[in-house]
């Protein structure tokens, strides 16, 4: 009997030793004919690759490589530039006519024989199909609302398919203001003029989609093998949660200018592990669709002669702010709000806690957003300089009736559970203590429940006075910022900022065709939001803290999240092979 156990044990030992021995076998040497390969990583498994359903940066990044759009966003100015089409707009700003190029092709990657085959041309009908599909309520697209600009879009998307007959639904679909005038011309009719519409047209939700494939495979159409795409790269592998691989599309019209031939992307959810792999030489970049440099390593990277050269700080279209629930005392008093906003030393935060070269903020919209009055120093300039800020803060607070914070009631600052936010909150809590003499309590809440609690319709008693939030651009225009977030009817208006002049300004600016007038209107809006009412305290404009191996000689990164043009990147393959050989 006991020998049975003995055997089991001995067997176990043998197996384990064998595993170790096998592991020590020398690694297979790379073969000579390998394509120019880039090793990046994904921060999470993309929830979906269907452009109609995309919402996550990883999905958007993948969509950018796989699907072309009518327009694209310039890497530097973030303005709309032609991709599949050039466009003209009617005098009243309501009708856009897109003239498409005729050499874009749908391709299909055959997994079994590892080849890319041509399927057909990308036509205007595909654009129309794609747009209507996004708006179709049965698709369930989370970003469909950006297309409400298109005539009939909102009606279709808000319809309840269960309550309508087939014909009624079809009528709504047909009623959407986008049609194909011929195989390569798309005409879009808007509900009102919107100067930023070309930027919206670059978004993934409005891209041409392959109708035949989608109808054939249903929800499985995005799997490699079924997938039909038209962008500079094709998807060759998707092991969920583990790995994505891409290969250059030889039928892309600019294929001869695409230098990187293959992209490998393991899914790495832990940012410090990703950086360890980068330092070990197994990853070439720390950037979208993966993580940037982890905060604790910033000092070491800056101090290291080699690593600091690989560091690259790029803008990102997001703002971090603390909002005030303006209906909750004592923050219903604008002076109190201004005091607390002024007492935040953004620069110290950036230098000591964030370390990512971020910029202190004094407007809601960040640089790069069309219409953002970042250079206008009449908007709360004291937010940018703590010396002035501290003095003004104490002034405001005293004027509000709480000199040195005497008699100030207990106040709560809340943020969702996250280490980063916790650090910032605690640092700012200390700043308020030092600069105002006020003690604020910090509470945390789980993300989904947090957002639910902040909704304008949720009961005020459950809310804190101060809440932390950030906003990132869906498209780079103030309409998406002050317009979408703080108008009185918005469900994002957690600060409960109800200002008639503000509402009027953003409403008018939406359709305004004269660009100067438009900018002035948004300037006024920001003045009202920040300088006069301080409904929120902007803290900093985000940056991307990226690293790129030296053998990546060209690596443009777009400020709009996920919109990275890998086809424009250049990798020195000899240098990379040499570097790997040494590692």
């Amino acid at each position, binding site marked *: 009997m006991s020998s049975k156990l003995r055997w089991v044990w001995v067997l176990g030992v043998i197996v384990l030793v064998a595993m170790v021995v096998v592991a020590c076998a020398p690694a297979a040497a790379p073969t000579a004919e390998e394509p120019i390969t880039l090793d990046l990583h994904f921060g999470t498994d993309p929830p979906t690759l269907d452009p109609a359903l995309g919402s996550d940066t990883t999905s958007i990044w993948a969509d950018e490589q796989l699907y072309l759009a009518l327009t694209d966003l310039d890497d530097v100015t973030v303005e709309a530039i032609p991709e599949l089409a050039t466009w003209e707009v009617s005098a009243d700003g309501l009708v856009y006519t897109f003239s498409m190029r005729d050499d874009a092709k749908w391709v299909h990657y055959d997994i079994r024989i590892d080849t890319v085959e041509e399927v057909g041309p990308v036509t205007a009908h595909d654009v129309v199909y794609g747009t209507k599909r996004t708006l179709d309520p049965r698709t369930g697209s989370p970003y469909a609302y950006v297309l409400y600009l298109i005539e009939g879009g909102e009606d279709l998307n808000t319809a309840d398919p269960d309550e309508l007959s087939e014909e009624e639904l079809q009528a709504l679909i047909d009623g959407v203001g986008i049609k194909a005038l011929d195989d390569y011309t798309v005409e879009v009719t808007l509900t009102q003029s919107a100067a930023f519409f070309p930027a919206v047209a670059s978004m993934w939700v409005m891209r041409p989609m392959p109708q035949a494939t989608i109808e054939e495979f249903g929800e499985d159409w995005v799997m490699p093998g079924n997938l039909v795409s038209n962008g500079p790269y094709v998807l060759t592998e998707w092991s969920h949660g583990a790995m994505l691989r891409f290969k250059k599309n030889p039928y892309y019209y600019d294929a001869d200018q695409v230098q990187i031939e293959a992209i490998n992307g393991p899914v790495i959810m832990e*940012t*410090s592990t990703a*950086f*360890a792999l980068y*330092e070990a030489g197994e990853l070439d970049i720390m950037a979208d669709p993966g993580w940037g440099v*982890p*905060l*604790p*390593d910033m*000092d*070491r990277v800056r101090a290291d002669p080699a690593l600091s050269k690989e560091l690259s700080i790029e803008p990102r279209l997001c703002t971090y702010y603390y909002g005030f629930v303006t209906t909750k005392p004592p923050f219903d008093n604008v002076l109190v709000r201004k005091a607390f906003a002024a007492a935040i030393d953004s620069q*110290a*935060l950036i230098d*000591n*806690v964030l370390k990512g070269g971020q910029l202190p903020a004094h407007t809601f919209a960040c640089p790069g957003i069309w219409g953002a009055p970042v250079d206008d120093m009449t908007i709360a300039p004291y937010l940018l300089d703590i010396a002035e800020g501290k003095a003004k803060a104490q002034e405001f607070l005293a004027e509000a009736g709480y000199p040195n914070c005497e008699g100030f009631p207990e106040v*709560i600052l*809340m943020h969702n*559970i*996250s*280490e980063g936010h*916790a*650090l910032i*909150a*605690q*640092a700012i*809590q*200390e700043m308020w203590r030092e600069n105002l003499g006020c003690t604020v309590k*910090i*509470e*945390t*809440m*789980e993300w*989904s*429940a*947090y957002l639910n*609690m902040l909704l304008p319709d949720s*009961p005020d*008693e*459950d*809310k*804190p006075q101060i809440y932390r939030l950030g906003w990132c651009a869906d498209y780079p225009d103030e309409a998406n910022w002050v317009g979408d977030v703080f108008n009185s009817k918005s469900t994002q208006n957690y600060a409960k900022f109800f200002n008639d002049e503000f509402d009027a300004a953003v409403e008018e600016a939406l359709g305004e065709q004269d660009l100067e007038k438009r900018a002035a209107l948004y300037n006024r809006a920001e003045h009202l939001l920040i300088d006069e009412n301080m409904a929120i305290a902007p803290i900093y404009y985000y940056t991307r803290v990226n690293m790129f191996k030296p053998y990546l000689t060209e690596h443009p990164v777009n400020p709009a999240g996920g919109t990275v043009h890998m086809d424009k990147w250049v990798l020195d393959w000899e240098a990379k092979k040499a570097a790997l050989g040494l590692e």
Partner: protein
Amino acid sequence: MAVAERAVAALPVRRERSPWGDAFYQLTRNRVAVVSGILIIVLVLLALLADVISPYTYYETRVIDNYMRPGSKYLLGADTLGRDILSRTIYGIRVSLSVAVMAATVSLIIGIIYGLTSGYFGGRVDEVMMRLVDFLYGLPVIIVVILLQVYFKALGRRAAATGLSALLIKADLAMGGLLFIFIAIGALNWIGMARIARGQTLSYKEKDFVMAARAVGVGPIGIIFRHLLPNILGPCVVQETLQIPGYILLEAFLSFIGLGVNPPTPSWGIMIQEGYQAIRSYPHVLLGPALALTLTVLAFNFLGDGLRDAFDPVMRGT
């Protein structure tokens, strides 16, 4: 005769000891267990005297000093907000020990009551109660703990909550987020304790002294409280001590996924979670809490083992 007497007198005399004394003696022979016990007492003292001996408070930040290495200003270095790691480690003892003790106590109380009842009454009652335990045993504890924590964290400051909920929420906030952790952990770990308590009850139920008590006319309450409970308490407490390292580690895990205590309350779990990313650049951030956690877990392990070695053979012999 005289020879026999002298022979008897020459035999070493074995000292009289009570079962508890005997157990204690056994325990002291286990040197590591003794060292562990002393360590734990030291920890308790440190926790109680935290305000006095810590060079800094656990919440004061000095953002300029972020990640400062160990030196004269901060003995164990500073963390990412410039808070003293030594002080926070010391205050962290409070969290870890209170989680350990509270969760253990909750688990012990519920488990013993349940197990005693089930074991004593036997028959149908026992069957039903044990089926329930089997069912709960199959619950993936972690998932339920996480669900509970998420639920509690989502309650937030529901002012609309009345009565008990409001009270619990207030208490939890006052304790820096600890109360709900206690409930979540303790409420699920009593199951193992219940089984043990029941097993012990069953083995004592048939003993002579219990029979005797019944014969004399002592009612069930009396039997349970005066005869069964004192006897099973020993092994149960010992068993619970062995669970304590698990509770401490569970709290660290919850902190890692963001469901632990509220900042700035320092728990070793949160400190490790804040520090593990810095292991490549500033390893000192991890040193304090990791070392403290490891030592405490080791100490409870050894002490628990020692207690069990000491008690078991004695108890079985009764």
